[in-house]
């Protein structure tokens, strides 16, 4: 502002009326075109920001780090961010270090080598052995804990298992604690008569775990071992059978900890022998010591009376065998085979199989490539399973535990799964063949299920016909058929069955599945195979498949019971077929969507809309509009005031994204009709309505562009319809901020489209709503809306510059109404919002006082054309200006008395702004000069000497006054006076 200026023909144009009176504030007219100083641009060679983006990666990479990520862009040499060429990007540095760390020799390997035990090559191969296809135990744990519980209400949570999401101290009742501790002390053998509940066991585990750590810390190894034995004993109890797999997870967690503690301790002893100081180096001594400790552990464990704890304890420290290689009976494979054989001694097949799983888990650390024992284990399992099935115990267990056979067999799942995955991981074909041979012999479908789920999908796919036959052959007692088909289907989806067999497999499977009596069984398989069809077949097949599903679920409204399955089918379809136009082309898809009700309808509606919103092409199909509105309506109706804000926000976003997809091109009327339908449908969503109004505004502008700025009678009536739409829609939006924004925008659009009276009404409406803007917002924290309001009103005033005055109520009708609203607005105490607005209105007055307005809207006659030179207009303008100054001064007076320093600061800014504005817009006469003098005086007094920015602003302002003195004597005097303050 201080740049473009120039006082002008000061008093020449002032009307004679005012010369008779005392000097008053008079708005000056200026010739901006002439006065303004043109800024001369000059061509630049480069963008000021461009330098940093000169990409020279190849050149620099070698200098900085040996391993740099390819995405590292280094700037040119003069880049201030790059202090030296050697600066290393912290991220790539970390990455480099990481790599170096990985390549350093494994300390364990070194120590073993020094012991003359296993050779290093073997150890390092162990690390290489695991790749991505190996599912670590830790990822299986949470699922097991979730699935196998006796108490569905309370999730199993343990403080020492990180992934159960519970931390902190667990409260254990003192009585219980004492009892456990007592039992530990006494080591008593007899069985407890009391039945423990699942909660009790979990509590006990908590205690045992913390006791284990305590004992270890206190170097009480015997007690630590006792605790582990006690814990392992829990696994021989199958009284809460549904909880057993989870119990296994928890117990082995503790045993793992125990095993790791023992291993780490021995290893740390070995390390101690490899100190850097050669004088103290006594490797032989330390390695002897470590070996001796290790042997002691194994001797102790070998004398544990009971079989199960002995097995678990030995397996937990299995890895320690590597320390005593060379001793008798310590060859890893023979140790593992021996333990595997000893597991046969466990009578209960469930208990036995979990020991096997644990062995497979820990043996992986000792000899990962050794697998044959697992096959032996599986043979034992199948054998035991067979004889167990015949025996009466099975019936007893099912009766006492009140559990179905399927559920009971399901308890084996995690263990068999784990065994087979250990086996199948990097498994050679001959191993897989051997496992299949076990199945062929036993027809055990539980085994088959896990074979299918753990073998590489590619293997399953290439042999799909064989597996399909296997499933047909498998016995139906030990595992339900539909589960087998589901598992099979999952693998088929993952792999690539031979092209020529794709349909054959499907037909083969469906021949069986289609005749399932139980609909749930049927739909479970269909849920999996839909993906198969989508992945490997075409849309036509998918449609046929859907038809088959519909044929099954429609009778007797059977679909009501299987909503979740249907839902997942729909989701799979949606994720596979991106293009919604194709989707609608499937004759059986929309009927499928009609099957949902209640909560699942809501979810499916949402998923459908989400899919629609990510659809790649724009849409104008009437069927889709209908679909969209139907599901949108369902979704809309499912939410109410009690719904979570976040949910509403997400849904709104989805709907908006969908609306964005609908594009009717030049057919603006259709577009408007669509928006009308949308408004009707989404009446409760503010943001959607906001989007709709914006959309209508867009089509107004589109129309304007189509007619090249000149509306015909037809288009202008269309525009009026659009603006009317806005006018009706905007008040229904609850959010006042959105409402205000839209009013302003829509009225601008209306002006552009020459809909004057409607624009006027919109502005009027906006003015009436200013009162509703809350001065503060509370969302957790209190936030002032002052800045927003000031900004909004400033924009508003800018629009008023070109808004033509009202034909009946006069040119000042709107601005005076606005001014009144601003005065009445509940501004917060000690804020300058009101003052700032007043200054803006002054600027507006100044603009109106000019001969020509700085900008215009095409085809709109603004005030300069309507009122230019009208003396009434000018005098009313000056009068209004005077009023504004008066009000501003009284406002400043109130602010002056606020003691708060920040208010003072704001006040100073207002003062100085006002000085600048006055110099710019007012005629410099004694009255305005004294106003400036007073304001300057007030500002100067209120600035603390430490606030440099204000002082600088004041100084610049003073210089600005000095500049004026070249053309005006009065300004010169004023400058001298101001300088004197």
């Amino acid at each position, binding site marked *: 502002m201080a740049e473009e200026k120039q006082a002008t023909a000061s008093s020449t144009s002032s009307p004679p009326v005012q010369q008779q009176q005392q000097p008053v504030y008079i708005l000056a007219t200026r010739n901006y075109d002439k006065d303004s100083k043109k800024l001369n641009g000059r061509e630049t060679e480069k963008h000021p920001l461009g330098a940093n983006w000169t990409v020279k990666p190849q050149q620099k990479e070698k200098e900085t780090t040996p391993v740099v990520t390819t995405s590292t862009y280094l700037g040119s040499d003069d880049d201030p961010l790059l202090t030296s060429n050697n600066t290393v990007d912290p991220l790539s540095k970390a990455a480099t270090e990481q790599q170096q760390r990985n390549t350093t020799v494994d300390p364990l390997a070194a120590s073993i080598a020094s012991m003359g035990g296993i050779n290093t090559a073997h150890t390092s191969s162990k690390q290489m052995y695991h790749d991505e296809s190996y599912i670590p135990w830790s990822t299986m744990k949470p699922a097991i804990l979730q699935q196998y519980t006796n108490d569905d209400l309370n999730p199993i949570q343990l403080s020492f298992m990180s992934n159960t999401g519970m931390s902190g101290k667990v409260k254990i009742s003192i009585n219980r604690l004492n009892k456990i501790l007592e039992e530990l002390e006494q080591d008593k053998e007899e069985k407890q008569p009391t039945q423990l509940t699942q909660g009790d066991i979990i509590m006990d585990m908590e205690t045992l775990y913390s006791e284990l750590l305590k004992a270890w810390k206190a170097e009480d190894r015997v007690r630590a071992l006792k605790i582990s034995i006690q814990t392992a004993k829990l696994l021989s109890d199958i009284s809460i059978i549904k909880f057993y797999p989870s119990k296994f997870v928890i117990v082995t967690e503790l045993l793992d900890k125990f095993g790791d503690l023992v291993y780490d301790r021995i290893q740390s002893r070995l390390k101690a022998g490899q100190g850097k100081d050669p004088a103290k180096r006594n490797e032989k001594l330390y390695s002897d010591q470590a070996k001796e400790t290790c042997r002691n552990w194994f001797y102790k464990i070998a004398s544990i009376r009971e079989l199960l704890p002995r097995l678990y304890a030995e397996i937990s420290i299995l890895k320690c065998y590597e320390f005593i290689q060379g001793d008798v009976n310590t060859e890893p494979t023979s140790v593992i085979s021996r333990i595997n054989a000893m597991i046969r*001694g466990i009578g209960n097949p469930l208990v036995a199989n979990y020991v096997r799983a644990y062995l497979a888990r820990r043996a992986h650390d000792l000899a990962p490539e050794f697998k044959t024992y697992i096959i032996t284990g599986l043979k034992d399992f199948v054998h035991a399973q067979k004889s167990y099935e015949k025996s009466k115990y099975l019936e007893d267990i099912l009766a006492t535990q009140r559990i179905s056979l399927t559920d009971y067999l399901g308890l084996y799942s995690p263990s068999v799964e784990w065994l087979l995955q250990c086996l199948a991981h990097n498994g050679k074909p001959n191993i897989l063949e051997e496992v299949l041979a076990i199945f062929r012999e036993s027809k055990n479908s539980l085994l088959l299920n896990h074979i299918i789920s753990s073998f590489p999908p590619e293997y399953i796919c290439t042999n799909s016909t064989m597996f399909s036959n296997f499933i047909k052959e498998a016995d139906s007692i030990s595992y339900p058929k539909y589960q087998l088909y589901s598992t099979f289907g999952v693998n088929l989806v993952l792999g690539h069955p031979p092209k020529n067999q794709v349909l054959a497999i499907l037909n083969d499977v469906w021949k069986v599945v289609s005749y399932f009596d139980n609909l749930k069984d049927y739909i479970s398989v269909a849920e999996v195979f839909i993906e198969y069809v989508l992945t490997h077949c075409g849309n036509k097949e998918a449609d046929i498949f859907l038809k088959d599903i519909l044929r099954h679920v429609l009778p007797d409204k059977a679909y009501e019971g299987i909503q979740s399955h249907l839902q997942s089918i729909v989701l799979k379809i949606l994720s596979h077929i991106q293009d919604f136009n194709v989707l609608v082309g499937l004759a059986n898809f929309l009927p499928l969507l009609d099957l949902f009700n209640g909560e699942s309808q809501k979810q499916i509606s949402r998923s459908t809309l989400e899919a629609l919103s990510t659809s790649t092409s724009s849409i104008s199909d009437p069927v889709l509009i209908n679909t969209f509105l139907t599901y949108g309506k369902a979704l809309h109706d499912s939410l109410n005031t009690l719904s979570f804000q976040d949910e509403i926000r997400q849904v709104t976003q989805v709907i908006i994204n969908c609306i964005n997809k609908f594009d009717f091109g030049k057919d603006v009327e259709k577009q408007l009709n669509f928006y009308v339908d949308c408004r009707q449908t989404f009446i409760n969503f503010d943001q959607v309505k906001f989007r709709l109004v914006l959309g209508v505004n867009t089509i107004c502008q589109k129309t304007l562009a189509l007619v090249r700025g000149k509306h015909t009678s037809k288009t202008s009536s269309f525009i009026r319809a659009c603006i009317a739409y806005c006018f009706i829609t905007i008040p229904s939006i609850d959010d006042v901020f959105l409402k205000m924004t839209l009013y302003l925008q829509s009225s601008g659009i209306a002006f552009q489209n020459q809909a004057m009276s409607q624009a006027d009404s919109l502005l009027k409406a906006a003015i009436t709503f200013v009162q509703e803007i809350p001065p503060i917002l509370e969302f957790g924290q209190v936030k002032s809306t002052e800045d927003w309001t000031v900004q909004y009103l400033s924009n508003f005033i800018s629009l008023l510059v070109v808004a033509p005055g009202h034909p009946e109520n006069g040119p000042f009708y709107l601005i005076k109404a606005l001014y009144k609203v601003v005065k009445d607005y509940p501004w917060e105490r000690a804020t300058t919002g009101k003052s700032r607005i007043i200054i803006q209105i002054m600027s507006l007055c100044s603009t109106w006082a000019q001969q020509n307005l700085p900008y215009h809207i095409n085809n709109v006659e603004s005030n300069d054309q309507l009122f230019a030179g009208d003396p009434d207009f000018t005098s009313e303008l000056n009068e209004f200006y005077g009023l504004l100054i008066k009000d501003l001064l009284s406002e400043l007076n109130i602010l002056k008395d606020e003691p708060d320093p920040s208010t003072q600061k704001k006040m100073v800014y207002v003062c100085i702004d006002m000085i600048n504005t006055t110099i710019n817009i007012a005629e410099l006469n004694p009255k305005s000069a004294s106003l400036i003098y007073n304001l300057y005086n007030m500002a100067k007094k209120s600035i603390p000497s430490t606030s440099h920015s204000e002082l600088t602003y004041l100084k610049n302002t003073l210089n600005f006054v000095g500049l004026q003195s070249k053309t005006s004597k009065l300004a010169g005097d004023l400058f001298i006076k101001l300088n004197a303050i």
Partner: protein
Amino acid sequence: MNVLDIKLKKLDKIYVLNVMIYDNDEYNITTILLTCLDHLSTVSGNVVINTPKELSHSGITLTVDGSVQLQLSSKSVGMFEAFYNSLKPITMLHYTFNVASSGKFAAGTTEIPFEFKLEPLPGQTLYDTYHGVFVNIQYTIKCDMIRGILSKDIQKTIEFVVETPSPPAMIKSDTAPVNFLITPDSLSNFKKITKSDVPNFRVSGILNNAICNINDAFQGYLVIESADAVVKSVELQLVRVETCGCADGFAKELTEIQNIQIGEGDVCRGLQIPIWMVFPRLFTCITTASRTFKIEFEINLVIMLKDGHLITENFPIKLIRS
């Protein structure tokens, strides 16, 4: 912290006697000479004195002692009073050294090395270290620090383990696997049940060897081919047989050393269940026979039935060290 301590160079404290065999044709007897061939049979270590301030003493002596202690169980006490003499401890080994004559130790740690060879007293033989109930074979090193009248004497005792080789005759003897079959017909001793009431069962198996290397595990397998009754547990019981006495009479005592479960619950029929037992250290030694005592071992295979009945099969075994 101990003021006085004995530290052996060998951490596991196990010392082995080596054997040399001479076939002496002239006398047609086999003479066994115990010789100390290497460091394994040389016990060496340090007496460690650790004192915060100056410590004066009137001499330190080291006593090495190896002896067989025989005890009588309460039931055989009367019977043995007659030849009570023979129950005196037998000393196999005895040394006394003067480690340091009277003087002073400066504050801090002082180590005085010592070394001796394991050699029996004339006419005696060294046996394996063994901790039993009625027979104990123990080797100790005792260190005494004599101090003035005003202060208490300080004593420290540690035990070390001696392993001796088995007589070659025993090692050479037959090492064929032992087959066994247990059926109601093979049982001989019925308690609280008549033979006809015994449920039908058939258990077979193999012991890899009845002559076992003490460092190896006791191995074999068993198969419960069939059993009408419910099996509760299958266990291996290691039993020591200690005999004390002389020509005039003897007392034989059977006691359990450890009991290891190899089958839990109603073990699956038809599967080979491994028999595997590690011999515990200290509580077992090689099968030993001398003039006044004998140490032998047996293993009982016990099948416990749900109804409380036991089926037991006894296997005498010989423990050797080769």
